[in-house]
């Protein structure tokens, strides 16, 4: 079993009062709570913070934790013989046991709310778990399956909670969007005293795509044109999630213009779809050949096009 230094996690001394513990937790929760933080590692950090707080704010659990002694964080250690006897697991290394699961289950136990679920007489439902799954845009477009893996606690016949790796294959529905969730009823943590299992929530996170940007069901991409294509018009091939398409660029197209391709975005479950927007960007060569330079100079000499007229004209 790996030792976790809950005091270090909350950034407090081992002699901290309950008020110090609450204050440290609140400060860190404001910073890392997954619903309010933009830190990509916020969710993981908040889990550690919440776990530390759940133990240290409960006087009995804190005492049990303190009785383990001070060790370096991450150090492998075997729990005291008294704990091993309790679970009929004498000599076990408790390798697949998480210290927080054990503290929750052991003796006076108790959860963050101060209750002791395993000793409660009424049925207590298991914990809900949420796991964020990165999904490729192509899979969101077509629908498909993805595997979701996480570690869940599972109690053996002696009541010892082991961390077990579970993998669920779930179907990504066609038409899902970023941030939407799937609920797997009864696939969360185990309940107590006949209580039901908690639920598992799978939050879909669309992976960054090398070409397309996503806004709701609309897709955007930069369509790069040469100056001559923009001035003269052209037929150009463009990518879509459903395959390549050829579109016509009108003569006189400028940078920043958006060409809308109706219903070529992400599908909706109702049968319609978002739009695909090609955002025009006119690219110029960094170096030109001598003949090209001469042609550009001739063009500059005969052209009366003024690109900055709106900012250089005297106000009337």
């Amino acid at each position, binding site marked *: 079993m790996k030792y976790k230094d809950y005091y270090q996690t909350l950034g407090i001394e081992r002699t901290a009062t309950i008020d110090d513990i609450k204050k440290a937790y609140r400060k860190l929760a404001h910073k890392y709570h997954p619903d309010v933080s933009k830190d990509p590692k916020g969710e993981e950090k*908040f889990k550690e913070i919440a776990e530390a707080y759940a133990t240290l704010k409960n006087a009995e659990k804190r005492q049990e934790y303190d009785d383990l002694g001070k060790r370096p964080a991450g150090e492998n250690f075997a729990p005291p013989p008294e704990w091993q006897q309790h679970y009929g697991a004498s000599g076990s290394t408790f390798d697949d046991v998480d210290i927080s699961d054990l503290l929750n289950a052991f003796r006076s136990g108790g959860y963050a709310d101060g209750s002791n679920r395993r000793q409660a007489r009424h049925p207590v439902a298991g914990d809900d778990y949420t796991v964020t799954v990165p999904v490729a845009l192509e899979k969101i477009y077509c629908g498909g399956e993805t595997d979701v893996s996480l570690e869940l606690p599972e109690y053996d016949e002696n009541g010892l909670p082991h961390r077990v790796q579970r993998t669920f294959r*779930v179907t990504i529905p066609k038409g899902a969007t970023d941030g939407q969730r799937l609920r797997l009823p009864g696939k969360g943590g185990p309940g107590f005293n006949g209580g039901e299992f908690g639920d598992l929530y799978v939050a879909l996170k669309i992976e960054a795509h090398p070409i397309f940007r996503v806004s709701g069901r609309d897709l955007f991409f930069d369509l790069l044109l040469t100056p001559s294509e923009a001035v003269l018009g052209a037929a150009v091939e463009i990518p879509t999630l459903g395959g390549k398409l050829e579109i016509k660029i009108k003569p006189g197209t400028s940078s920043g213009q958006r060409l809308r391709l109706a219903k070529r975005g992400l599908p909706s479950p109702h049968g319609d779809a978002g739009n695909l927007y090609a955002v025009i960007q006119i690219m110029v060569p960094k170096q030109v050949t001598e003949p090209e330079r001469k042609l550009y100079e001739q063009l500059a000499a005969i052209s009366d096009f003024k690109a900055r007229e709106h900012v250089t004209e005297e106000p009337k």
Partner: protein
Amino acid sequence: MMTTVFDSVWLSDFDVCSAKHLIEVSGLSSEEFDVLVEIGVIVPISDNDQTKAFQLHHVVTANTARKLRDDFELDLHGMALAMTLMRRIDELQEELNAARA
């Protein structure tokens, strides 16, 4: 490692559920849920029905409210305020994403 193929429930905006379901799944109290409906954080599909129906994606909204309540030890008013601000932030984030795209 064993992989379990499992049917999941898509918490979408086109499937509906009852208030009772949202309360059961989230762990909110009836009073807390009613406040969220009152302030417009959770919106019923139709106000006229005797038994109001809600879009299933509100399971996420109700769960978020319960998590904020528990994790920040908020009272009813604190939770309602946090959820109102969260909704406003979500709307602004959507506008920002659209502008950036």
